[in-house]
């Protein structure tokens, strides 16, 4: 136990150390950098597994979590404590975080072309362009190593540190610290190739958009701290009296209780971080970063953090819930989550960029989790968070592998105008890249919820079952979204891997090396296998072999008054989820199996003008630019600076100065010059002193002895006179 408590503190440390060591000492050595980075991730991974399995074996982990705390901030004569803690939720979280992070680290080594020569004209800040090598007498172009290879591992190490800190934190402030560190890292990594204008825009967009949520969250933290005097999860969330007090105190804002207001403020943080509607705009643009970063943001860390936070704060969100009546924060979550799920899924239908489709699917899936939590499906939301992390990491890394394969083709043909990310440039990659294909297929099926075998099916099914039991509206929205998900996933798989190659580049695509496909295979196993820990006991047939371990493990991490037994089995949601998954997949394949180019996308005919809306993401970026960004720039520059500071305040000051100046002029012209200067100055001030000066000047001979004689005459003459007079 003591050892475990110590080990918990050591989990976030290796990536942080890796960051500092690489930045300070190893930044010139690519080899040292990746070894330090991957080694750190491996250490954290091993430690996490030890902690995880100890947590699984521990009894009553919910009541007595692992962890320890120490005095951090001296405040008001006492101390604000911070600590790390492993309860069932954190245990599950470090499990998936550690694995995916470790896999992403390994993958990154290959992705950034470790072992390849230096590029011909690569510069830091732009993706590598390839290097020319001479082999067997003729030149050809091969991929070149990333110019900022070392820096990548430093940043991603810090990223991992942030996530570990966040999931292990035992109080909201430490969680927020990890939260913001990840914000910084996502900023740095999205803009990793800052030479591209799009990356520059995306990095700022990501940071600012999430910061909108963050400042609300900070307010929520301050409010919670003010009203409870602590930020510790145990002290707030597991103390029914505290929660009831929060739920019954009026906050003075919009008729909400303090608990309600806090919950909503914190949830706004999640809206920013987990890219929920309407702050979702940054996430698709985050694709500008290298693909491992996308995987990190979409699966392992960034967006999961937002959902993790609301899952963590669930007792607060649910405080005051009686007889199944949703509290205001839960209502907000259910609404925003389901809207996001559907809304993002529709946009994903019309995207042609292989990563962008996945980005919108992430937003949509996060909406699922948030909606699930909104209707009280705590376990289901967590379950989906974990399975989603696995299969989304798999899909992103897979898409990176595809892009890499395509870039190989681009290098071969030398035609740099072909976008290696556009799905309409691909096709038939199944035979070129078999390992990537099969793993991607597994990931895609898990995302679509392909029945029984994939993990995604079990988690999504549980959410739908919960929704069916609690809110019809949420159920139907999510079901439609699930259908769309299956459809666009199959569209993606079909366009990318099936059929015939549409371009020369696709013909010359090449399977990537084991650095990259290895992690894919590991994740594929998890994308299938992890579902089995959460099979409902009452599920026909399979339920006999399962004890729904996840539900018991996680459920007992909740305070008792929130714990609910697993739902009774119901046929309708099961059938619904079978229908939408299989129907979506089948339809997707049927529609897209022979589409030759983007112009002939069948959806265009069906949807007409609406398709353009979808392609342009409902014009959200343009609207935000028009509504917020341009006005903010105008307001800052023209109103605050030019008008307020320069014109009004400085203008007032200049007015004061002007009046003073004018008064001074009057004094000068009508008093100083005639009276003082002429009358007094020219006669008394001029002539008289001048005469004295002329006389006195004679004494100044410059010879030292003259001065001395004068001095002595004064001194001894004085003495002499004194003697004469005083005798």
């Amino acid at each position, binding site marked *: 136990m003591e050892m475990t408590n110590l080990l918990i503190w050591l989990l976030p440390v290796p990536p942080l150390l890796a960051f500092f060591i690489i930045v300070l000492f190893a930044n010139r050595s690519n080899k040292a950098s990746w070894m330090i980075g991957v080694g750190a991730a491996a250490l954290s991974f091993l430690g996490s597994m030890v902690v995880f399995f100890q947590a699984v074996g521990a009894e009553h982990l919910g009541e007595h979590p692992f962890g320890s705390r120490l005095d951090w901030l001296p405040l008001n004569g006492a101390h604000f404590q911070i600590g790390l803690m492993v309860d069932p939720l954190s245990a599950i979280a470090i499990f998936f975080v550690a694995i995916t992070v470790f896999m992403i680290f390994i993958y990154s080594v290959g992705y950034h072309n470790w072992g390849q020569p230096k590029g011909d004209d690569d510069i830091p800040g732009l993706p590598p362009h390839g290097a020319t090598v001479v082999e067997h007498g003729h030149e050809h172009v091969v991929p070149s190593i990333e110019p900022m290879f070392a820096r990548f591992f430093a940043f991603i190490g810090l990223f991992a540190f942030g996530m570990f800190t966040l999931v292990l934190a035992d109080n909201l402030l430490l969680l927020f610290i990890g939260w913001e560190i990840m914000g910084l890292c996502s900023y740095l990594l999205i803009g990793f190739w800052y030479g591209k204008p799009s990356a520059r825009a995306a990095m700022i967009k990501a940071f600012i958009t999430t910061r909108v949520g963050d400042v609300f969250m900070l307010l929520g933290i301050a409010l919670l701290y003010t009203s409870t005097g602590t930020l510790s999860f145990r002290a707030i969330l597991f103390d029914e009296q505290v929660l009831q007090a929060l739920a019954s105190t009026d906050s003075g804002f919009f008729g909400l209780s303090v608990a309600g207001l806090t919950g909503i403020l914190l949830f706004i943080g999640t809206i920013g971080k987990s890219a929920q509607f309407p702050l979702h705009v940054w996430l698709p643009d985050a694709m500008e970063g290298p693909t491992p970063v996308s995987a990190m943001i979409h699966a392992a860390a960034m967006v999961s953090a937002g959902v993790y936070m609301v899952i963590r704060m669930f007792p607060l969100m649910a405080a005051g819930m009686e007889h199944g009546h949703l509290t205001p924060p839960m209502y907000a979550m259910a609404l925003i989550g389901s809207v996001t799920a559907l809304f993002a899924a529709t946009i994903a239908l019309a995207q042609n960029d292989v990563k962008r489709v996945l980005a919108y699917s992430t937003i949509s899936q996060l909406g699922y989790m948030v909606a699930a939590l909104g209707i009280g499906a705590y376990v289901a939301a967590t379950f989906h968070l974990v399975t989603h992390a696995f299969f989304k990491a798999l899909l992103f890394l897979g898409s990176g592998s595809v892009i890499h394969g395509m870039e190989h083709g681009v290098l071969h043909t030398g035609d740099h105008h072909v976008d290696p990310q556009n799905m309409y440039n691909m096709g038939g990659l199944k035979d070129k890249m078999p390992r990537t294909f099969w793993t991607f297929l597994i990931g895609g099926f898990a995302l679509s919820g392909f029945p029984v075998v994939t993990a995604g099916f079990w988690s999504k099914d549980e959410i739908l079952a919960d929704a069916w039991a609690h809110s019809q509206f949420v159920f139907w929205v999510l079901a439609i979204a699930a259908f769309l998900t299956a459809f666009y996933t199959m569209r993606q798989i079909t366009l990318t891997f099936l059929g015939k190659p549409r371009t020369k580049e696709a013909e010359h695509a090449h399977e990537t090396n084991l650095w990259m496909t290895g992690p894919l295979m590991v994740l594929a196993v998890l994308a299938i296998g992890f579902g089995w820990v959460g099979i409902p006991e009452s599920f026909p047939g399979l339920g006999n072999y399962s004890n729904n371990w996840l539900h018991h493990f996680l459920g007992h991490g909740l305070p008792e008054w929130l714990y609910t037994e697993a739902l009774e089995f119901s046929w309708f949601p099961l059938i619904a989820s079978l229908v939408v998954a299989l129907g979506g997949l089948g339809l997707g394949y049927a529609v897209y199996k022979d589409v030759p180019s983007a112009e002939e996308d069948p959806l265009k005919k069906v949807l007409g003008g609406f398709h353009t809306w979808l392609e342009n993401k409902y014009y959200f970026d343009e609207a935000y630019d028009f509504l917020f960004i341009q006005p903010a720039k105008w307001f800052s520059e023209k109103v605050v600076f030019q008008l307020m500071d320069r014109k009004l305040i400085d203008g007032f000051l200049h007015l004061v100065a002007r009046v003073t100046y004018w008064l001074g002029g009057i004094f000068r012209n009508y008093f100083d010059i005639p009276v003082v200067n002429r009358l007094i100055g020219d006669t008394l001030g001029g002539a008289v002193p001048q005469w004295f000066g002329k006389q006195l*000047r004679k004494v*100044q*001979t*410059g*010879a*030292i*002895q003259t001065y*001395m*004689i004068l001095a*002595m005459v004064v001194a001894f003459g004085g003495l002499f006179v004194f003697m004469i007079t005083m005798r």
Partner: protein
Amino acid sequence: MIPLSWYLILAALLFGIGLFGVLARKNVIAILLGIELMLNAVNINLLAFWRYLTPGDVTAQIFTVMVFVVAAAEVAVGLALVISVWRKRDTAYADELDMLKW
């Protein structure tokens, strides 16, 4: 027995001679010599006071130490200045060094 007055008169006369040297000589080094004489007069006075008035106390001697120190420092700096001036202006006459004149 010698009364204190003898010493004081001697010192006063020596001081006067030194003062004359300082005021009247042209050569800067000669001026320095005059200063030395004056300082010696001071020393005679100090030690005479010590012997006649406070023989058990060494305060007067402490002042003598200080006078010695000042004398040594003054000679060192003074001579260095003389040499420096000599090099620069090729003169050692005080009345020729009158750049401070208006």
